[in-house]
């Protein structure tokens, strides 16, 4: 789940480990890689709930007898999602699997289409994530590292455990203000 709970006091998100077995009128799953074993596991669990499932993948194919389609790139995935959600019943659940940057890109599209946060389940796969440079607003991809150099303004950044769902990114802030670009202290 991605919603805040009373015990969860941080901006950093918590991701789904299995589809919530709640009633709904339909489920849609967006997969960055539909052939991933986790996607298969989720789809199976959803089918067991006897609710209609539509799978849309960016790459790969799920080895399941599920209604599925492959789109060519992120832009057409977004368009496809918009079409699927336009006129969709209120009790629609969306599942998204992929790296963190992909998850929050889809989350923003879904919210814009009217889905509530509690209707969206995110399944994080892989280590890639986005870093936002607070000094120049540049977004870049990183893995698990705690420090990085901004590829745009060159400031060496500390990756803070402060996450923006709107930007889908962690906050990067100057690591050493006495020597922002690591060129030696003045």
């Amino acid at each position, binding site marked *: 789940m991605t919603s*805040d709970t009373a015990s969860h*006091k941080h*901006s950093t998100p918590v991701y789904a480990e299995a589809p919530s077995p709640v009633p709904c009128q339909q489920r849609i799953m967006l997969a960055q890689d539909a052939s991933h074993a986790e996607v298969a596991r989720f789809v199976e669990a959803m089918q067991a709930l006897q609710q209609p499932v539509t799978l849309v993948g960016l790459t790969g194919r799920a080895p399941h007898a599920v209604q599925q389609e492959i789109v060519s790139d992120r832009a057409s995935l977004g368009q496809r999602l918009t079409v699927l959600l336009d006129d969709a019943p209120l009790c629609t659940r969306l599942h998204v699997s992929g790296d963190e940057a992909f998850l929050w890109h889809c989350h923003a599209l879904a919210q814009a289409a009217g889905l509530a946060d509690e209707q969206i389940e995110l399944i994080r796969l892989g280590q890639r994530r986005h870093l936002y440079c*607070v*000094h120049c607003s540049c977004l870049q991809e990183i893995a698990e590292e705690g420090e990085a150099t901004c590829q745009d303004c060159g400031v060496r950044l500390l990756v803070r455990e402060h996450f*923006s769902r709107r930007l889908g990114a962690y906050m990067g*802030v100057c690591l050493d*203000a*006495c020597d922002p670009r690591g060129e030696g202290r003045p």
Partner: protein
Amino acid sequence: MPVTLKPVETYRDDFTFRNSAEAIARFPFPFPEDSYMYSVNIEPATAGAPGSVFEHWFDIDEHYRSEMAERARVLERDPDRCLVMPHMQQAGWDAVEMLMTHLATDYPEWFELERDGERWLWRNHALDLCQRFTFGDPASLPCEPLEYITRQVQGDFAMLDQRDGNLWMDAGMITCPADWSIKFDAGMSFTQWHSPVPMAHQLGVFDRALKYLMNIQVDQPVRRLNWTLTVNPRLDTSSETFHEWGGERAQVSAENVAQRVHLRVELQFMPRLPRSNALLFGIRTYLISLEELASNPAWACRLHRVLRDLPEAIADYKGMTLYRQTVVDWLRQFDPQARAA
């Protein structure tokens, strides 16, 4: 007594900002006791003594022109410091009405408002502005309504949408924050944007504060004081510019500490915006150098004790670890007990 406005001073580069004796006398010293810990120090914002910073809802003081010039400079370089999400339009007009009405009533020598139905005329004599506009029609103002009015009022302003049992920072004019970023935090819930603050979550401070804030009624605003230290009288200590000012923390020495280090106090003021049901979160910042502050030895003595005994995690979060000892060493002269020891 009408407030006297100083000519423009600077909050950057040559830092010509200074407090007059009158400004020092009315400085909102934030410590009611000799130690500090997070608490839900929110109270009803009842009118304070004449001349005090609590007298009016929105305090205008001698630094008005300087602060508005500084805001204009920040926005020129970084226009995104003012942000209004589409569903916050009505809240923006609420803020226009609240700020203009209060300023015109409380400072008639500087601000005038004439209303004829939806046709309004606003005059700001301090900045020599005159604007006719149609209330509710954004095309009748030169910029976003929230931006238009907050370019003319001291302090930062966030507007919080109340929904789903939380408060969401969906709009704001933030050009003088104490080490945070509206561009990063926009769209976050109250719980999310406070996540970097140490210790307070464990104390349950934010849960109680959130409940309190969500139940603020129309015309029943609340306030609280918050504080930190800032090197140089710099208003824009935003995360966005941290790489430009953070290094000044390493420049504090025994020789310059009294002039360079400033106590930074935020008077946070939270009224309900009546038509939109959003909450206005005003953050009015006051700066005072240690030298100015020590003109009141009781304050200097108390600040000595607070800073000496401040828990490490809070000192770290407030960014004063590098120079805290230098400050404490200088303040010790004002603490009779410490001197005797």
